[in-house]
Structures are given as C-alpha cells and as structure tokens.
C-alpha cells in the first residue's frame, strides 16, 4: 500500500509540473491513454454512426406497417422483430437513437454547465450571492415540473411552433430544470474546499477569482459532477418520452428509446415480447455505461488529486 502511495506522489508532482503548458490538450492525450475511456468513446461514436447512417441501409421506412405482421419475434426479414403495428424494430431503434442520444447529451451538458457554474459561484462568494442563487434553487426545486411542462406545451402549441421542432426546446428544458440539485452539491464541496490549504496558497499568490474558481476549485468537484452527469443522461433519455406526451418531445410516429420502452409497459409484453423492450433498453444501457467510463477517464485526467 505504501508503495502505491509513493508512486502516486511521484506522478502527482510530474503532472503538476507539466500542467501549465496546455491543460486541455494534455488532458485529451491523457484520456487516450486510458483504455476504458477509449472503449467508452468508441462505443459512443459507434452508436452515433449506426443511428445516423444505419437507417439509410434499411429496406423499410417509418411508414412501412402492416398489422397482420405485428408483434413478430426477430426473423430474417426483421432482425429485431416488429412492434404491434408491424413496424421494423431495428429501424426504429436506430432512428430513436438519433433523438435520444442528442437529447440525453445536450440536456446533460446544459445542466452541468449551469449547475456547476452557479454552484461554484455560490460556494465561492458566499454571502448575498449564495443567498440569491440558493433561494433560486429552492424555488426551482419547489415547483413541480409536470404542471410547468404542461403549460409550456400549451404555450408552444398556441404559438404554432411546429411539433417536430419542439424537441429542441425539450433538450434545453430538461437541462435547465435539473440544475438546482447539482448546484447544491457543487456548492457544498466548494464551501469545504475553499477553506483548504491549497486555496490559502492561491490567496497568498494573489490569483484572480476566475482562476481560483475554474482552475482550482471546480476541477476538485469533477468527481461529483460526473456522477450527476451520468445519472442525468439516463434520466433525460427516459424522461423525453414523458415530455412527448405533453406535446414537448418527439411526435409520433418518430420513435425515441424512451417511448419505445414505455410502449411495452405491461406484464404480457414484458414476458412474451422481449424484443419490444430489450433493444432500446440495451441501447440506453450502453450509452450510460459509455458515458460513465468516459467520465471516469476524464476525472482521472482532470482531477488534481488523482494518481494513475
């Protein structure tokens, strides 16, 4: 055990000396050395490729349906079977991926950007800045999302925003609604971190606030941000289907992983027709895992405390 400690200290100091050069490029290089992270990246890129290019090779289209051919298990013509209207599941999973991947990732990024910035500001400045941001967070957390979404759906409908464009609103909305809890978590960490020795050193050095927050404090909260971010991607992908029920998400017949999986919400489909829910479920699973390992890799690279 003590050996590892010594080793990592050595590495730590090495990282420290190179760091000022070009942190992001360096980080990326470091990231590529992490085989898990690379694996995750490859999976994610593959998913994107399959979802965006795959449908062009499908012999079917979204409008191909035939209920006499409905609910068929995987076969030569339909590799992943068909749904109750006789539509090809493989094609639908690929098309759904376009929507779901985009929604999940964009919503997560927005939420992380807002949540971590506000959380850091509140934790660093404290006082009235903290009061305002945190009371805002209190209010956001107190207002149930459902009625809010219903209103938004109605407003967009009254404004005659084309239904197929509303998905972009949804991505921002999902991101915007979920920042408060992340902000609270980041703030909590920063309140603690800013009292630690290394920050006192930064104080003595006379670093600017921006540098202190973004170069020294926030990187230390990256582990928790990554956890929240991964949970959020999965959440956003599944949530999207609910939003579409409120006129905010995708419009049928456009599929999404979320609405495919929720379409099979009874015991009979669950038991007898796994091909309805396994494909979208597996896709969500791989996306989440991929993002998680990439996140872990990122943390290893960015977190100043890390060794390896």
């Amino acid at each position, binding site marked *: 055990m*003590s050996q590892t400690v010594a080793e990592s200290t050595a590495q730590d100091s090495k990282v420290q000396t190179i760091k000022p050069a070009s942190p992001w490029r360096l980080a990326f290089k470091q990231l590529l050395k992490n085989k898990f992270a690379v694996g995750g990246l490859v999976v994610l890129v593959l998913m994107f490729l399959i979802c965006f290019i795959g449908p062009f090779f499908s012999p079917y289209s979204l409008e191909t349906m035939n209920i006499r051919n409905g609910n068929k298990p995987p076969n030569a013509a339909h590799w992943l079977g068909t749904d109750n209207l006789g539509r090809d599941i493989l094609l639908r999973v690929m098309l759904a991926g376009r929507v779901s991947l985009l929604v999940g990732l964009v919503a997560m990024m927005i939420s992380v950007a807002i949540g971590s910035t506000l959380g850091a500001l509140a934790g660093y400045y404290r006082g009235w800045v903290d009061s305002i941001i945190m009371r805002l*967070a*209190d*209010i956001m957390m107190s207002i149930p999302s459902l009625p809010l979404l219903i209103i938004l759906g109605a407003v967009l409908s009254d404004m005659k925003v084309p239904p197929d464009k509303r998905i972009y609103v949804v991505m921002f909305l999902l991101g915007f609604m979920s920042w408060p809890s992340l902000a*609270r978590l980041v703030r909590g960490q920063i309140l*603690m971190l800013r009292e630690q020795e290394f920050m006192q050193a930064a104080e003595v050095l006379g670093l600017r606030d921006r540098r202190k927050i973004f170069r020294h404090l926030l990187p230390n909260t990256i582990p928790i941000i*990554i956890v929240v971010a991964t949970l959020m991607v999965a959440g956003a992908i599944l949530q999207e289907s609910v939003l579409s029920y409120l006129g905010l998400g995708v419009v049928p017949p456009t599929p999404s992983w979320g609405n495919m999986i929720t379409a099979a919400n009874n015991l009979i489909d669950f038991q007898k027709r796994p091909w309805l829910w396994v494909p979208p479920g597996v896709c969500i699973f791989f996306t989440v895992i991929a993002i998680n390992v990439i996140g872990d890799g990122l943390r290893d690279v960015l977190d100043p*405390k890390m060794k390896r």
Partner: protein
Amino acid sequence: MKQYAIRRLLQMIPTIIGVSVLLFIVFAMAPGNFIDSNPTISKERAAELKAIHGLDKPLVERYFTWAENTIKGDLGLSLQHKQPVTTVLNRYMWNSFLIAAIVLVLSWTIAILVGVFSAVRQHSIYDGLITFLVFALMSLPSFFVGLYAIKLFAIDLKWTPVGGMYTSGSNATGLARIWDLVEHLMLPIIVLTSISVGGLTRYFRTSMLDVVRQDFIRTARAKGLKERTVIFKHALRNALLPAITLLGIELPGLFSGAMITEKIFNWPGIGRINLDAINARDYFLLMGFTMFLALLTMLGNLLADLLYRVADPRVRMK
C-alpha cells in the same frame, strides 16, 4: 451560527411567499380546468359550479382568499375528493411516508456499504459487477423492475402478496395484522430500495475514492492505523460530508410518494393522488400538497447547510 440560522429562517418567508405566488400562477395557467374537463356538462352548469368554488373570480382575488385561509389553517376543498385538502392528505400521505422512510434508511445503509466496498476495491471484479448492475437498473424504467418483481416473487414463488396494504377479508388483529402489513411492504420496499440504491452508490463510491486519496488518509495509514479504522473512521466520515447536501434534497421525498411503484403495487399512497390531482387540475389539493413539499424542500436545504457547518467547522457561510 445562530445568527446564520435566524437569517436563513427569515429568508424563508419571502421565498415561500414567492413560491406560493408562482405555484398559484402555474396551476391557474395550466390549460384546462377541473370543471370544464367534464365534457358532458353544460356551459350554464359549468359557470354555476365555478361560482360555487370561487373559480370565477380574478386570479389576484383568488390568491388572497387562498392565502388568507391557508394562514388560518384551512387549505380548502379538494375538487375531486370533495373533502378538505388536509383530510385527503392525511388519508394517503402516511402510507407513503411509511414506505419512504424505510426505503431511505435501507438504501442509504446499503449504498454506503456498497459504495465504500467498491471504492476500496476500485477496478476489481466486484466493483465492475456492481457498476454493471447499477447501470442496468438505471436503464430500465421502474415499472419494469416492479412488474418483474411481482411476477417473480408474488406469482411464481408465492412469497409475497401481489399488492395492496392488507389482505382483504382477513380479520387479523394485533401482531398478525402487523405481520400482514410487513408482508405487503416487502415487494415495494425491495423494488424502491434497489432503484434508489443505484444512484446513491455512485455518489458514495465517488466521495470515498476522493477522500481515500487525500493527504490525511495517507497520514493515517502511515501512522500504522488499521485499514478498517482508516476507512470507516477517518475516510467515511469525510466522504459523507457531500451526502449531507443530498440528504437535505431527499427530505421532501419522504412525503411526496412514489407514483409508479404505488400504482404497480396498488399501494394507497399520496403519489397517485397527486398525479390524479395534476391530471384533473384539482387546484386546492395541488396547492396544499405542493406548498407542503416546498416548505420541506426549504427546510431540508436549511438543515443540510446547518449540519454542514456542524460537521465541518472549517466551512463558513458568512
């Protein structure tokens, strides 16, 4: 500290008023309303009913009437249930609380243990397995997990009842009745715990990984303390600090009910009632329930901040 607490409590007053105004507007603006949602009603009768419930008045007047009654402790009548809001909440909320409280304790205990374990053994096969399970549970909606649990434990193995709170038609009293309740609690608790344990585990694993690498842990190890002492006494204590924030966020969850699981397990909880109220636009029930949760949200966050200061004296919030 005391001063800080008082200041925060005072801040709560404008915040809660702000929330109540916002909520009132949100619910009033939501398209559709309880009375018009009945398509068979004539326009004249709809107008009469709105007048009876005071829904014909301007929004501002309605707000002040509501606020005045609420301060007096009268939350109004639920339009759906035609009973005082407090009666309706009282009927269902405690059933939800019972489950939520047990699940909270269970899931935190398990998540801490699992989190610590998989952090200490990072990159081991166990860590990998746990990670796999956690993400698998996350990728499926909770109704899948619930339905599968029913199929497995209630139908095939016959270990537990399918759903509900007590066996219908049984005259059991005393201990037998409590046992009956425990049997019915089993499935929803297993499912809810396994769902919420997933995310929590990730938090604890991360915090733990974070702390284990810090200097004071190295120092502790260097001092020759036993690994167990290092982990559970020194590391865990620090790793739990961020969890305080999380705990604060979860406080309202104790009373809000779990809508899907309640429906699947046929549990008479408040989650379903709330959802019905949203769908039916039952304004007073919604206002009463949401305001109660808002108050808990704020209290939870306040408590978390106070605890934070107690737990880590270095933290100052000005």
